[in-house]
């Protein structure tokens, strides 16, 4: 008997005027399976997942049937559903109910009315399994994003669910915390046999380990197969989703590979060394960086900063020069002080030593109206913190009275169709673009972006990249802080490594990632033993192509 059996399920929201969010979805999920659900934003992934748990199912018109262990889901007792079907959502913060870690772990068990003895045993068990002992007594407010999401998972696992549904659980986490989290999910699947259904943007970490991948588009399931076959299918269909596939798959088909496609970096390396044992062309041109930067748009000199009088320094002598008209990326670990550097430029934090010069003039010499009106602006990490009105249009109108300018910027950011929506009703990628539009209305010449690709899927990332390129053409200098090495490798002009409160090295992306062996892109890790300076999937494909031509 299938664990979940979805039969011809259709669903439309009451406000959608008959447009179906789910259209004839049929899916069978076996016990112990690990299933990846992929698709663009708005393809109906979340709507489908929410149907699998009655309390979370949205209101609307529903047709078809969902069977849980053979019983229609509506007939399964709420208590059984809460315990047996675990559901982890996107936002790590808002899912947490109580103020202490131990209390949160026990929350589900308390709701079910468990007795002390059971609760004690389960909570202890979970704390050990998830490595929570060390922060068991802590306040939830003091946890990092990764710890919070792990706590959410643990508090659901304490109820011993048979099936775990995860809706983009790592979209708000940095790459290291994300892969920690996904490894834990995999461990649960392997060691406990819990069925897992997961949606994710970052497919590199989960695609190779999934039993099945299900691809959704426009509320329909368009493919349901093993990950290896899905890669092939999407390539043949020239589907947009192909761009979201892990690097080895994209390189393999991009270079016209035959046979079984590699899924992991390891498989990719084996395939490359078999196909190109002695490559004739093995390096891409990587121009060196000019040491002399004339008239930098932004220059930082020896910035020192700490948040409180007796806390450790966050910035420990940050120095950098950003040439005008470039996209400058700052990468580095979590909590290294990258975002703080941007805040220091904006004057949200005041460094106690050092100098910030914007277009050659010390930042404190500017009047604030002058600085933020046509000179400098920052897009914060959470775009929601910029929205203060009921519609996107009103929010944009807060910045300028000029209707024509609003229309222009809306066109650049591709949000024309969203202007009358409430900002909170937009998807992550749309919110990001709406916020960017609002920031651009200050007409900045220097634009600071804090993690602009956080929580965005690969299509929106490409859109964002196009927008950034357009801005650069207009002569705007962009400084971006990011965890997303793939994005930086592909689109940045210069990349700096931030570590231990300092800017350590700066180089062009090709030389920067090409010379790193750990902190680098999947494409580089996969190809560095045959090619050098190939840092994006496109680079590797290009080298493959050149080698093929040379061989002919």
């Amino acid at each position, binding site marked *: 008997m299938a664990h979940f059996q979805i039969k011809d399920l259709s669903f439309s929201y009451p406000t959608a005027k008959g447009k179906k969010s789910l259209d004839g979805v049929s899916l069978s999920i076996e016990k112990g399976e690990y299933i990846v659900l992929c698709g663009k934003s708005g393809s109906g992934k979340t709507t489908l997942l929410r149907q699998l*748990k009655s*309390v*979370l199912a949205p209101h609307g018109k529903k047709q078809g049937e969902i069977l849980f262990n053979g019983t229609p889901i509506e007939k399964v007792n*709420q*208590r059984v559903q*809460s*315990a047996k079907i675990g*559901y982890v*959502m996107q*936002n790590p*913060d*808002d*899912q*947490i*109910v*109580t*103020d*202490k870690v*131990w*209390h949160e772990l*026990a*929350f*589900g*068990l*308390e*709701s*079910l*009315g*468990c007795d*002390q003895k059971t*609760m*004690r045993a389960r*909570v202890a068990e979970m704390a050990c399994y998830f490595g929570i002992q060390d922060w068991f007594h802590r*306040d939830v*407010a003091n946890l990092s994003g990764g710890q919070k999401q792990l706590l959410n998972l643990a*508090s*659901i696992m304490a*109820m011993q669910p048979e099936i775990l549904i995860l809706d983009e659980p790592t979209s708000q986490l940095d790459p290291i915390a994300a892969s920690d989290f996904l490894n834990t999910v995999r461990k649960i699947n392997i060691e406990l046999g819990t069925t897992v259904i997961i949606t994710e943007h970052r497919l590199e970490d989960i695609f190779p380990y999934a039993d099945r991948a299900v691809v959704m588009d426009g509320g329909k399931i368009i493919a349901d197969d093993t990950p290896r076959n899905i890669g092939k299918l999407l390539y043949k269909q020239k589907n947009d989703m192909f761009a979201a596939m892990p690097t080895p798959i994209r390189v393999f088909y991009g270079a016209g590979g035959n046979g079984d496609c590699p899924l992991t970096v390891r498989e990719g390396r084996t395939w490359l060394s078999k196909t190109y044992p002695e490559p004739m062309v093995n390096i891409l041109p990587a121009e060196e960086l000019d040491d002399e930067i004339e008239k930098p748009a932004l220059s930082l000199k020896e910035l020192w900063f700490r948040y409180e009088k007796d806390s450790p320094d966050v910035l420990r002598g940050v120095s950098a020069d950003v040439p005008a008209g470039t996209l400058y990326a700052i990468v580095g670990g979590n909590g290294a002080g990258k975002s703080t550097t941007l*805040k220091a430029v*904006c004057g*949200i934090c005041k460094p106690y030593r050092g100098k910030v010069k914007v277009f050659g003039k010390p930042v404190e010499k500017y009047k*604030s*109206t002058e600085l*933020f009106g046509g000179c*400098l*602006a*920052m897009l*914060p990490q*959470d775009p*929601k*913190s*910029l*929205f*203060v009105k009921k519609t996107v249009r009103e929010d944009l109108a*807060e*910045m300028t009275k000029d209707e024509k300018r609003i229309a222009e910027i809306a066109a650049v950011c591709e949000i024309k169709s969203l202007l009358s929506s409430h900002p*909170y009703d937009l998807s992550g990628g749309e919110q990001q673009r709406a916020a960017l539009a609002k*920031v651009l209305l*200050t007409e900045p010449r220097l634009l*600071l972006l804090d993690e602009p690709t956080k929580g965005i899927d690969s299509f929106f990332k490409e859109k964002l990249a196009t927008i950034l390129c357009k801005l650069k053409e207009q002569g705007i200098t962009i400084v971006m802080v990011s965890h997303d090495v793939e994005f930086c490798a592909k689109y940045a002009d210069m990349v700096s490594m931030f570590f231990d409160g300092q800017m350590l090295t700066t180089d062009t992306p090709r030389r920067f990632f090409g010379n790193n062996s750990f902190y680098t892109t999947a494409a580089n890790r996969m190809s560095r033993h045959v090619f050098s300076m190939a840092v994006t999937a496109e680079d590797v494909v290009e080298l493959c192509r050149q080698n093929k031509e040379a061989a002919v």
Partner: protein
Amino acid sequence: MRDAFSKCHPAVNFLFFVGAIGMSVVIQHPAYLLVGLLTGAIYYLLLNGKRGLKTILGLLPVFIILTVINPLLNTLGATPLFYLGSRPYTLEALLYGAVTACMFVAILLWFGCYNKVLTSDKFTCLFGNLIPSISLLLVMVFRMVPNFIRKTQQIIGARKSIGKGISETATTKEKLISGGTVLGALTGWALEGSVVTGDSMRARGYGTAKRSSFMIYRMTWADWILLAVMLTLLGVTIVAACSGQFAAEFVPAIELAPISWGLAAYTCYLLIPPALHIKEAIQWHISRSKI
């Protein structure tokens, strides 16, 4: 924080403070009040270290002002010190003022200790079983406060970085409008978050059964012994109080009950937390010097 008494069961902590603060409120006898004040100060210092000393010194002016003011309002008393116009400023009223001030400061100090020892989670743990829904509400409020502060800072920072912050030259009206906008944005954001929180609660079975409460603290035998000692001492003190040992009259003439065994019991009672604290510090010191 390394405080031995804080590590005891919350029920023990709570009962102690009920006793300590409750007695301070009813006692008027200067000897007993002085004991309450001194022990409170000692424990407060042990809990807060150097920072505690600052607070205690800060309370000194309060003490003095309260003392000096009373004779201005209350002119009864047999021994006038001097006259303000036709109103006498009497010794008895001054003493009575000192006693009231002493009581006030002692209560403040003990409340300060209470705050340090009985943290929010201990409180909710204590009353969670009696009123589960209210205790959950409290816990959620405790969680929301830091969340709100963080989000407010985020919004203010974000608005500043697009030139919508409060400039140095802003008028009061502009400041008010700006504050209102931030508050509005915060409310929207909070509502959005609370929908997710609600989903998360229902997804974990909230409302499907009668809630139970996870007790993270357990009564150990040491807690029971401590509780017994505490109750005995408190009982003796109350008996002493009932037999008139605490009686004190200030106006028109000073009449104090003689000091007796009640004071010993009361002192011992209040010394429990500092004694435990010091005992543990010494034990720790000895066991470390053995290593």
